[in-house]
């Protein structure tokens, strides 16, 4: 069965599910970090590092899930680095994020050279669309387990921030370090842990890129997804559930170019590829304001001040 022009929205929907997963993981990680009052712009570097290490481990061991785990650990280590350097007095977290972005990508390109050519086993997909007769619908509804884990994680984080001790501690540290200190919490320790955990999630998001979609490792694999996720968290007002919706939106925007190409529109290919960036920028312009702090913004966050 041919879908013709209906193929575009179907492909965008399928793309939204496929492309959104790294956005989802990175934005949840960034959400956790920012809730603790720090911003980690280096998630782009962590994403690339996660993609490289996940693919490399999967190639060497033949087990993609081990790759996912190692990608998370690599992200955790880079997150720890960011957290530790930022804990030094008078060190600017935004600048360290830029440094980590360059450091992570450079390191990943260096170590990932041997893995550009070989094939690694990739993550399996769950076929939810086998009832449909159209191959487009079938491929659009191929869902990866990581996507489902991400959805569950978003729900769990929303719950944790609202009603667990750990979630409340992170929020206190992020809203007022003085209050947290007065209550006897070690502000820096909480932030380092939150950044490391955020790095872990971003690393997993990176492994999705190399192990599922697009499903290979090369130096052009990530093009700003990590950075867009930072903007996405601002758009999502630091709420894990909104992060999920925003990730779907961004995924759909990212899938627009390939979807239009599939029905024969190729002239503005590069322009359609810019859609996610334009969307991010437009959203930031629409939601930010110079006169008031954003609703829901952690009080200690430098990016919104």
């Amino acid at each position: 069965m041919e879908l013709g022009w209906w193929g575009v929205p179907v492909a965008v929907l399928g793309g939204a599910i496929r492309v959104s997963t790294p956005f989802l993981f990175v934005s949840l990680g960034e959400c956790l970090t920012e809730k603790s009052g720090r911003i980690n712009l280096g998630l782009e570097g962590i994403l690339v590092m996660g993609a490289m290490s996940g693919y490399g481990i999967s190639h060497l061991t033949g087990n993609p899930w081990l790759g996912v785990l190692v990608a998370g650990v690599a992200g955790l280590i880079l997150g720890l680095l960011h957290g530790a350097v930022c804990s030094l007095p008078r060190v600017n977290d935004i600048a360290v994020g830029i440094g980590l972005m360059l450091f992570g990508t450079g390191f990943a390109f260096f170590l990932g050279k041997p893995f550009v050519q070989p094939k690694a086993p990739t993550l399996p997909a769950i076929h939810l669309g086998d009832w449909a007769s159209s191959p487009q619908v079938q491929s659009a509804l191929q869902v990866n387990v990581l996507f489902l884990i991400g959805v569950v994680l978003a729900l769990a984080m929303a719950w944790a921030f609202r009603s667990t001790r750990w979630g409340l501690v992170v929020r206190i540290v992020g809203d007022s370090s003085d209050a947290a200190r007065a209550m006897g919490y070690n502000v820096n320790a909480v932030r380092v842990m939150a950044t490391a955990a955020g790095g872990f999630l971003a690393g997993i998001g990176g492994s999705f890129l190399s192990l599922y979609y697009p499903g290979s490792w090369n130096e052009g694999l990530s093009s700003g997804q990590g950075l867009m996720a930072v903007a996405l968290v601002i758009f999502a007002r630091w709420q894990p559930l909104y992060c999920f919706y925003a990730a779907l939106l961004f995924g759909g925007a990212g899938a627009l170019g390939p979807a239009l190409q599939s029905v024969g529109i190729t002239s503005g290919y590069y322009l359609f590829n810019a859609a996610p960036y334009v969307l991010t920028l437009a959203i930031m312009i629409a939601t930010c304001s110079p006169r008031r702090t954003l609703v829901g913004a952690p009080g200690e966050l430098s990016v919104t001040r």
Partner: protein
Amino acid sequence: MPDSTMVLPAGSAVASPIRGERLRRAAESVAIPIGALIVAMILFGVFMASIGKNPLEVYALIYKGGFSSGFAWQNTLQRAAPLILTALCVALPAQAGLVIIGGEGALVLGGLAAAVVGHAAAGAAPLATQVAMAVVSMTVGAIWIGFAGALRHYRGVNETISSLLLTYIAIALFNHFVEGPLRDPASLNKPSTEPIGEAVMVGHLPGMDVHWGLAYGLAFCAVCYVLVRYTVFGFALRIVGGNVRAARLAGLRVGWLVLMSCALGGAAAGLAGMVEVAAVHGSANASLIAGYGYAGILVSFIARHNPIAVIPVAMLVGGIGASNGLLQRRLDLPDATVLVLQGIAFMAILAAETLYGRFRIFQPREEKK
């Protein structure tokens, strides 16, 4: 005894205490980055040793490829030229307290604009064409980065994120035009715009194999240094960078200052694009997207956003880049080796921020009675 903080008349033969303090400050902001770079070199050396390469050999090759001979220096300076300009794109907005990291986008679009102008003006006097190319590329860069500054001031959008997003958009636009409407049909394997022609190409500095782009960069740095240090504009800019609320209370036009610093920085990066097109590539193609914008961020941070300090740092980073080919050939290292060294150096420099004010030797002396 007179109060030691008494201000002596300018030009006084007696070394003023203020000048002494200034020297201490300057020494501190030279010594700490150098210390951080040494630490970074040690860390990178350990990393090299851990993958089985001799770190001393690596550094010897970096020296050989970047600084040992006249030929190496020319290669280094050739790379330093765009780095100086893209570093200014970070350093100038930094005076007003902004962290702009979108120099790559301004460079790419500036280069594209320069290529278009250079080709369209074929037949005109070369000098006039070059001036037109420079003006147009600087204007494009100024608008591009100025946009990030405007978003910051009028909408409160974080300029770090927006400027990097603008870079991705700029590269998409660049690819669209170079592979689409502006593509030279003669460029088969490597899509390029139509060449600007030999006659319009920016030549070499007299007596050297280094193009005029280096002189543009040096001149831009000198102008910026004077502007930041010795003019009311620069003083106002630094007040905005120090404390926006104080600047507002003092009645400074914060928005205009923020916008101008971004536009000037963008103009520098745009000019870097023009230099790359008019002195190196001859047309706009993917070679323009070589990461000069990102390396410029590192240069500016090491130079502590000082427009003059940018020059030697750009030469250092350019020299390391120039030695990349040698490292790849001799030691079979991947081309990302330089990126790793840059990344480690960047992290070390940022971590060293915490050391300022910690060393007694750089602090003002206790007042003696």
